[in-house]
């Protein structure tokens, strides 16, 4: 009975990892590939680790599994954010069918600061009378 439970959990985890691997090959864009990677890191490997915790069924292994899963869930979004920011700053192109780029023109090229009102400041410089 426990074996069947371990089989089901590890099968779902391996399927999620396999779908993520297919996605990182087939996705047309860096940012879409990045959105696939984080899901595999958290859900797929978390389920594989959970199957190990069910198999050994002791407190030290469960603590270890919880520590690894917690660390993965904690660090995957941070690493994804940092590599996405570095990719956008170094000029990675979006997919040609992407509809909107929310960050376009909002990064200061010299200081690499993110501002929401760079366009507005430029417009105020051109037309000072239209400032409300």
């Amino acid at each position, binding site marked *: 009975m426990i074996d069947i439970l371990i089989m089901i959990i590890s099968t779902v985890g391996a399927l999620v*990892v396999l779908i993520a691997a297919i996605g990182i090959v087939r996705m047309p864009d860096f940012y879409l590939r990045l959105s696939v990677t984080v899901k595999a890191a958290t859900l797929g490997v978390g389920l594989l680790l959970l199957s190990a915790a069910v198999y050994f069924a002791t407190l030290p292994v469960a603590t270890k599994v919880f520590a690894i899963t917690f660390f993965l869930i904690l660090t995957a979004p941070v690493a994804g954010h940092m590599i996405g920011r570095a990719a956008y700053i170094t000029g990675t192109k979006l997919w040609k069918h992407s509809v909107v780029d929310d960050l376009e023109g909002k990064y200061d090229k010299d200081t690499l600061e993110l501002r929401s009102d760079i366009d507005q400041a430029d417009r105020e410089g051109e037309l000072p009378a239209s400032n409300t």
Partner: protein
Amino acid sequence: MNLRDYLTWVILPMLSLSVILVAYRFFKGPRIVNRVIALDLLITIGIGIITIFSIQANQATFLDDAMILALIAFLGTVAFSYYLEKRKGND
């Protein structure tokens, strides 16, 4: 079919196929950022393979290596993104 055969003939081939697909993206990847996320995903799949192998070998000690790999993967991705930004800032 007992658990060990199932893990050997179903789960580990699926994870190995994932490693091959991600390695294709790792060698092909048009820019360095694609290679960085492919490396991150390779190490993450490696954590899963170590976990399945620890079940197979009945050795819970192998999970320590998985923890170390999780630490190294995070550190590598952060270091790569940090120096990519610095390189852009210099030139």
